[in-house]
């Protein structure tokens, strides 16, 4: 049913993450537009969820007993699409149609376009509310599936996000886990220069959540944080400190890479760094 039950080794997960990064940079260059830095920085989070943790079945995307993985920060969808393809939800060849006319791989994810997508996202701040709704719906049906909502740090600036934190904390939605990609950049620059989020963990805790801050590129840290989240009686936010552009040296930690794709030449350099023989 699910690769998670096979307990992949660290080396195997690392190899999957490498392949996902290769897909991400390739599809972005093919598209000629899109968001590179955030997508590359979130690869370990997605690899962990889809290959190490969540109950999902690529051959049955609407399996009622699946865990729900929601990407709220829709602009980082290359990592979602590349992960879904790697997991077998659709053929990897289709990744090159990203953002093109008549594609199922819309510039920001659309619920009904592609198997494996759980919510439409792109307008920031709308994901966590929907995750709360799903968590409530599953509780009403007395089901034990979990809901995972992946957010960017930039969308912590949206008011709706905090409305959702408040509700989930007050209602002890323990079947809900949020991931925050804390990469410290957003479209207008470093978060510190836009609107700093220096007290993020403290703020989320004050809304009734448990928080765990980890290295978002460490599979073991992600694994144990998700173990701990399952034990909590409150919802848990896993704040993942990440390097935007992770894995490609000239893209790392530069906010200019928030919303642009690699050129053909940059792609070749990126692929070399990612161990692809030309």
């Amino acid at each position, binding site marked *: 049913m699910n690769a998670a039950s096979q307990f992949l080794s660290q080396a195997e997960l690392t190899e999957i993450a490498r392949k996902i990064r290769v897909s991400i940079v390739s599809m972005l260059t093919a598209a000629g537009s899109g968001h590179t830095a955030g997508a590359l920085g979130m690869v370990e989070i997605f690899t962990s969820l889809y290959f190490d943790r969540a109950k999902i079945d690529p051959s049955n995307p609407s399996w009622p007993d699946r865990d729900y993985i929601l990407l709220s920060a829709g602009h980082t969808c290359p990592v979602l699409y590349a992960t879904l393809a790697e997991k077998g939800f659709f053929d990897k060849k289709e990744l090159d149609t990203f953002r093109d006319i008549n594609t199922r791989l819309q510039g920001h994810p659309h619920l009904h376009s592609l198997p494996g997508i759980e919510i439409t996202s792109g307008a920031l701040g709308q994901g966590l509310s*929907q995750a709360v709704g799903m968590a409530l719906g599953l509780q*009403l049906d007395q089901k034990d599936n979990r809901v995972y909502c992946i957010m960017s740090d930039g969308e912590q600036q949206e008011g709706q996000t905090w409305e959702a934190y408040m*509700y989930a904390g007050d209602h002890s939605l323990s079947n809900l886990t949020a991931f925050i990609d804390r990469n410290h950049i957003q479209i207008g620059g470093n978060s510190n220069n836009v609107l700093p989020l220096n007290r993020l963990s403290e703020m989320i805790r004050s809304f009734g959540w448990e928080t765990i801050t980890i290295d978002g590129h460490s599979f073991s840290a992600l694994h144990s944080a998700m173990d701990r989240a399952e034990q909590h009686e409150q919802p848990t936010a896993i704040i993942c400190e990440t390097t935007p552009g992770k894995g490609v040296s000239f893209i790392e930690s530069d906010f200019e890479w928030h919303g642009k794709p690699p050129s053909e030449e940059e792609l070749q350099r990126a692929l070399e760094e990612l161990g692809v023989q030309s």
Partner: protein
Amino acid sequence: MTKEKRTTRDGFGEALVEAARKDPHIVALTADLRESMRLDGFAEQFPNRFFEIGVAEENMVGIAAGLALTGKTPVTCSYAVFNPQNTMGPIRSSVCYSKTNVKIIGGHAGISTGPDGATHQALEDIAMMRTLPNMIVVVPADYHEAKKATQAILDYHGPAYLRIGKYLTQPVSDENTEFKLGKATILREGNTVAIIACGTMVAEAIKAADQLETHNVSTEVLNMHTIKPIDRFSILELAGHVQLIVTIEEHQITGGLGSAVAEVLAELPQHPPLHRIGMLDQFGESGPSDALLKKYGLTADAIVDLALSKI
């Protein structure tokens, strides 16, 4: 037909309870307006299916979308100035684009909301919802029609906006009146003037038709309870046999019922002139409901004066 005046919000609240008894998937959400939106009955009878979200309308719509994605039929309830007017973003992306089966109930709509003043009088909500793909828009005229409209939007699978109010409306229908989404109801037949109305203005349209008959002006009255999808057939049929068409609504004259009718007529090679009665690009103010309706020209008298001056 009983003469008792009742509100559309009462019709909504009662119909929701009746529907929820039959359909366990129905859940209700509110943003701290439980009593005002007539949800006390639902909350008492179905406590597990009732969600008090607090004063957070965007979150309410988002949670509703999530509930819909787990198979529920969520009904989100607040004043129309807050839902849909504060929730346009989540409605557009999490509801309409995602085609989640979320119902948007906008209460206290229109200037007849009265003393609360302009901040609480939704007058642009029909226009906002009408432009969204996958959304349908329903404006019931009285208590009984609100009950039927509520059942109809719950039977319909997909995003729906129901506009209701707290104004005590004169009945224009009873429990036996037929109601079909997207199909206007003919309340009077005539061949000189046609009045197309929705919501609270339907009763005014009937009064106007009665007055016009005393001037020997044969008047047809159409209750256009569904603004989207608009009943093109009924409009085209009217256009073929009257000399003047008047629309009236408790809404800006741009973007609402009048505009929807104009869009249909404009495609014809020729058609009778259309005059739209509504709010003239302006906000309301505080005051008793009837005094406000009179001040802003949303009355039978206003229709009659206009019709007599144009034919």
